């Protein structure tokens, strides 16, 4: 059943937690895809196109809120937000997608591309202070399925080596089994280490600046600026504390300062990837 686009848009614009029974997931998906398609057709008129893409992003956001957390949806969210002119929301969507599927190469590339689109000043070293380093680990290179296939294969080979040793009594087969087990141990320890690092990163809440803002030395606009230039929208930072409507941030380069709480977008509760 097809839901009229306007009605669906009204319902969606009411907020993420709209009353039940609302449109089904399939209807929201159809609405989002249709809006995106309209935006593509209106590509020659940026004003109309951005409006259509914003509607599409609303639909995809709603699906994400409903628990359909998969890499493809995260990428669609990011593309819709980006085309709607909302770069910070696109970066939030990509970070949330990567939190769910850190190994997804498309999400990694899209996040890199979005970070490149942040309008840093051409002069000064603000970009080096703000730009977070790319996260590299085994979980960003290998999906759980790939890890399962590799580990399973190594385990089967190890067991096969032992069986073959039992048949032939040749020590080489036993050595082969040991090599496979050692490989398994290396793979497992790499995952364990990566998991620890991700857990450590998760303890710090990440935020994205929604608009250009001055980083101040204290939690009031009367405090002097920490940096000469404004922080551009889309900058990612770690949230340290919140006090009096202000948030203390730490930039990737280590600089700490305060911005109004209204100037940041928070990442939603991130999901730890499961092996």
């Amino acid at each position, binding site marked *: 059943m097809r839901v009229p686009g306007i009605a669906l848009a009204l319902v969606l614009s009411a907020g993420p937690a709209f009353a039940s029974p609302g449109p089904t997931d399939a209807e929201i998906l159809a609405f989002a895809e249709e809006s995106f398609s309209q935006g593509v057709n209106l*590509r020659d008129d*940026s004003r*109309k196109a951005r409006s259509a893409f914003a509607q599409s992003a609303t639909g995809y956001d709603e699906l994400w809120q409903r628990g359909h957390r998969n890499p493809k949806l995260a*990428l669609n969210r990011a593309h819709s937000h980006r085309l709607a002119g909302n770069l910070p929301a696109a970066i939030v969507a990509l970070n949330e997608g990567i939190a*769910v599927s850190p190994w997804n190469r498309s999400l990694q590339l899209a996040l890199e591309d979005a970070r490149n689109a942040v309008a840093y000043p051409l002069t000064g070293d603000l970009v080096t202070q703000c730009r977070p380093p790319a996260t590299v680990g085994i979980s960003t290179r290998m999906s759980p399925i790939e890890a399962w296939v590799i580990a399973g294969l190594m385990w089967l080979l*190890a*067991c096969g080596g032992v069986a073959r040793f039992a048949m032939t009594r040749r020590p080489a087969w036993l050595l082969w089994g040991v090599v496979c087990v050692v490989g398994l141990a290396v793979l497992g320890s790499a995952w364990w280490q990566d998991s620890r690092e991700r857990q450590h990163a998760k303890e710090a809440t990440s935020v994205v600046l929604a608009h250009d803002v001055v980083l101040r030395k204290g939690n009031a606009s009367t405090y002097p600026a920490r940096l000469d230039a404004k922080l551009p929208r889309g900058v990612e930072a770690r949230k340290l504390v919140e006090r009096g409507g202000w948030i203390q941030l730490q930039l990737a380069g280590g600089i700490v300062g305060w911005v109004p709480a209204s100037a940041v977008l928070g990442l939603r509760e991130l999901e730890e*990837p*499961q092996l």
Partner: protein
Amino acid sequence: MKDEPRTRADKTCMARRLSIAVICFGFILHPSSFILSQEVPLVGQPTEDFYGAAGSGVKVAWNVEPKEVTEDGEIVATLIISNASNPTKITRPDLKKLPAFSDRFVITDNADPKVPEGATEVRFSYRLRPRNRQTDQVPTLNFYYFNPAAPAGKQFKLTNTGRAIPITVTAAPPKLPPAPIPLAEADHLFVIATGPALLNRGSGALGGWAWWGVGLAGPLLALGWYVAWRRLYPDAQRLAKIHRSRAARRAVDAIQRASHAAEPPAAIAAALLHYLRARFPLPLGAVTPSEIGEALGELGMPTADREAVAGFFRKCDTARFSPSSDNAMSLATDARALIALLEAA
């Protein structure tokens, strides 16, 4: 005598000078002295509509262009003041403070050129944008000026720009929408995934069952392979046992390599003899089949086994020197079986 008329002339001169001084002083004190110096007296000056103009017969007039304007357009109204004796000292009337104008128009002062010395008229230019379509005129502007030639008390005279100048405000032309600007984003952003796969709730992570499954599958498959192998190759199992003996393993390996030797039967016989010497303390002189058989008999080997060993060496000799004898492959099989027999003993 001559001093007297000089004194009289001096006195006359003094009196004349004094009278001139008195006249000059009185002239200075008289209000009309301001007139001659073109200064407008503050006394009696109107509080409104006076902009510092002085002169006799000062005239003011509006020059409005165009007379017809759209609702969002502007007209240029120029106030022309002529016959003023002090054109450089006339201040610009602030129309924004005059409700008759500010209620009708959004007023913007134009930058007028500086009035040159000796000019006979002054022009002040305004841009007037009608506030609505009901605006129908540029109203009359009252204008006081100072006439020094008029009798005292009537020197500030009021004039005006004459009748209000009618104007016509027409409807604004429909605004053309701004030219659309294409969305300048990378092409790959316009491509998204579609379909029901977007409603998946999984991120691609595997459940614990997958790991338990593969963990159990390894040993089970290995065990199954081993059991099947034992059933399919029972001799191979026995052969495998002989690998427990280092001498037997080496002998089997040598037998396996014998097929590549120049004289396979001799290589197989040598491998078996080497095995026998490793397992049993054979004398070095025991090299022929019968000598080997006797030596093994002295060591307590059962007769059947002893005969089998001696028979095998005879077969090897036959194969070496008789072209029609057994081939190397059958000898190798026999040798492995013999080793297995001796290992099992």
